[in-house]
């Protein structure tokens, strides 16, 4: 019986296709076809031999069609195909990049999160260079049903081996209950946040959180959760979902499924989802977490994306998903505070500093009293303006002059 894993074809890049036939005798034979054979032939066959030995396979015929797969991909493909033969809990793990191990803040910026199909290594390699706040390795809708198992190995290996340059490391698991089985491939590795798709109840969040705790061996206090609400029930339960666990830091809405669920067509102006979006923003804000808007699916229309982002920001959303790297800059640009917001924020910040110096405890701008949360938001606006280059670091001095 010959099993296979991976992808092949003229358009495949940074991936490989592996066929494995485990034999009774004759030792290990490896046939490698690769564009990079002259440069990495020894490295590729060496890794394969080491993995076969690791899983105790002494006789096999292995055929590799390689399209420039990096070791993390090669190892994921080979492990996937080996596990079609043998049932084992053993995992072949490549050394973890030390720079991949970092925590993120509860209230970290999540303006952009780039979705990457979990079974496509090509898109993972450079995902970190576009400056998006989060990278989502997706095991759900972007992975074909027959490929779910190989995608788990690839996502696991990517979490360990691909440098996302400080972006928040996220994984979207499958819809529960299947998604719970994904967790053991994810949780022990450098992941900051798990997205729970098609979430419609508090119970589903708790189940996920409990499973994570079980895998960690202690109460989950390291991996954040972001439920994605994608149907009418979920929207009606938005409050309980948002408050389900202290690990929930943001809640997203998925409008493609939602509009279908309520029997509406998704339109450009989005009247049909107005209620749901407002409900999500309110539920999230009430729970002190970030409301995140749905992705915008036309990757060629940047002007429409910009309009969409400005509306999203106006409704109170804190960010949205990206399905193409080119969307990242547009979303950042339009979620950024505009000139008027920055100028108001500066006034508030100065007033607050003055109040503190004078010990009055009361912040006032233009005879209006300013509450503490407004001050906090103003400082946040300034921080974001500085981070995105809209305001110089020494904005106080430039104001003085």
């Amino acid at each position, binding site marked *: 019986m010959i099993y296979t894993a991976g992808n092949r074809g003229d358009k495949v*890049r*940074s991936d490989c296709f592996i066929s494995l036939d485990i034999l009774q005798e004759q030792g290990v034979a490896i046939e*490698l076809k690769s*564009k*990079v*054979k*002259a*440069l*990495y*032939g*020894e*490295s590729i*066959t060496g890794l394969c031999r080491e993995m076969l030995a690791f899983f105790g396979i002494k006789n096999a015929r292995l055929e590799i069609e390689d*399209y*420039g*797969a*990096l*070791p993390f991909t090669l190892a994921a493909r080979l492990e996937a195909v080996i596990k079609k033969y043998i049932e084992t809990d053993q995992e072949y793990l490549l050394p973890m990049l030390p720079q991949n191990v970092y925590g993120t803040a509860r209230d970290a910026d999540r303006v952009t999160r780039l979705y990457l199909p979990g079974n496509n290594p090509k898109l993972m*390699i*450079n995902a970190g*260079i*576009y400056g998006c706040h989060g990278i989502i390795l997706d095991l759900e809708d972007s992975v074909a049903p027959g490929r779910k198992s190989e995608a788990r190995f690839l996502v696991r290996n990517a979490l360990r081996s691909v*440098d996302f340059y400080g972006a928040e490391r996220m994984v979207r698991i499958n819809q529960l209950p299947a998604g719970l089985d994904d967790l053991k491939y994810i949780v022990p590795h450098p992941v900051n946040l798990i997205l729970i798709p098609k979430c419609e109840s508090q119970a589903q969040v708790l189940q996920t959180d409990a499973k994570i705790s079980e895998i960690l061996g202690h109460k989950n206090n390291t991996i954040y959760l972001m439920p994605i609400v994608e149907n009418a029930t979920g929207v009606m339960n938005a409050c309980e979902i948002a408050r389900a666990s202290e690990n929930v830091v943001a809640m997203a809405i998925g409008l493609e499924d939602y509009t279908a669920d309520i029997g509406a067509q998704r339109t450009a102006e989005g009247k049909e989802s107005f209620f749901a979006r407002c409900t999500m923003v309110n539920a999230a804000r009430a729970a002190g977490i970030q409301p995140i808007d749905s992705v915008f699916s036309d990757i060629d229309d940047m002007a429409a994306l910009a309009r969409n982002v400005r509306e999203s920001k106006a409704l109170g959303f804190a960010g949205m998903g990206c399905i*193409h*790297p*080119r969307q990242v800059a547009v979303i950042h640009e339009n979620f950024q505070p505009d000139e008027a917001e920055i100028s108001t924020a500066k006034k508030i910040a100065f007033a607050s500093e003055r109040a503190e110096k004078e010990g009055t405890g009361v912040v006032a701008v233009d005879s209006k009293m300013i509450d503490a949360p407004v001050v906090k938001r103003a400082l946040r606006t300034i921080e974001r303006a500085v981070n995105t*280059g809209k305001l110089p670091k020494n904005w106080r001095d430039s104001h003085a002059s």
Partner: protein
Amino acid sequence: MRHKLIRNAAGRLVPDEINGKPVIPYMGVGKYRPQGVRHSPQIPSCIDFPSDGNKQVPSLREALIRAGLKDGMTISTHHHFREGDLVAQMVFDCARELGVKDLCWFPSASFACHAYLLKYLDDGTISHIEGSMNGPLGRYCSEGKMRKTAVLRSHGGRYQAIQDGDVKIDIAVLGAGCADPFGNANGINGPSASGLLGFAVADAQYADKVIIVTDTLVPFPCIPWQIQGNYVDYTVKVDRVGIPEKIVSGTTEVTRSPDRLMIAEMTARFCDVTGIIRNGFSFQAGAGGTALSVGNFLGDIMRKKGIKARFARGGSNKYLVSMLEEGLVEYILDGQTFDLEGVRSIRDNPHHVMTSPFTSYNYHSKGNFASMVDVVILGATEIDINFNANVVTHSDGYLLHGIGGWQNCLFGKTVILPVPLFRDRIPVIRDEVTTFCGPGELIDVVITERGIAINPLRTDLIEMVKGSGLPVKTMVQLKEEAEAICGVPQKPRFTDKIVAAIKWVDGTVIDVVRQVEEEML
């Protein structure tokens, strides 16, 4: 035939002779100054040509016979028809029919379509190629199958070699979109229009015999005459001289790859913060997807700041033409026309002008345009940590590209190579390039998706990018980053057999390519 190996100024071992001719090893940039007089073809006299100006002969075969085609000759063609070229194929079909052997093909560039000629390399009709080695021909050559050693030259180096007499063209067979029976020809009209014919200029002027082949023969005069009939011996009309849709297509779409777009955008930003983009500046961007989008991003900045460029050096294409028509660029000095918009523009717009390697690149011209360009955007297959670069071989050792105008363009005032850090696991930044095509002292900036390296010689640029927020790194950092992702590559293995020589712009040999060892595993 053992030859002696000499270490040249690039540190490469090159033989003392190639194809029986003595080699001058590369001496460094601007070090070699040939003496003597330029090569001249035989003196023709007008009394030997029909006074009615009709030089038409019935077929290419007939023209080749009359031109005296015989064993061992050098036959030249130009590459303005790119992937749609039918001329080279027709020439060597005739040569094969006539039983002629050991020809040297001297094209201004070759393309994948010329894989057709492999059978003539196999059967000995063609002994070797002196020109670019693209795709299948490069592979064939790298595997050591060519009978003699290939010689690769830049566009300017080709002109120089013709003028030096290093290459003596016996018969030039020049395809033209349109011609008259006297031999005046252009690439502007006819179904096989290619825009211009600049790469055929040297061939027309210096070959012993010149044949013009066209599918659109018009009565005298063919206007404009990009090639003057006074150089031409015979004219031939054929059914098809090229395949129109393959002449004006290919690489003329901007890249859609987000990584490449990012590199292109960073390149334009670099030009902005370093003050290269200013009123009256000039630029040259190649025809690759990344280079094209650099042009677009430059255009965005120019539009925003109200800046106009005095001229752009082409390759022209629809993007450059739209910049010309929008008024962002005052002149296109065009080397080759890549699409129908380019053809239309050069036909109709007096600000879109034909150039040739003589005007743009030639070492034996009294100056040339290349060194006057403010910023040049080029590609490379590999760049080493000292900024030396390779454009002809891939890291696996196979010849797969020609030099084109690349070496010549290195003389631009600021030379930028926007390249990905690696391509499908193949690192671009290396300790040492597989083939040395251009010295690092002429390469100013390398821009990758993971950082920008500026040549330490360009202290002015280093100073100007400070505080710009651009991610400046060293070449060593970039190389280490690439190796951390891809792994450290093993070295490709070569035999001792030299399969190709790489000439520098002055005719010296800067490096050689050796036969790739049969894959073992």
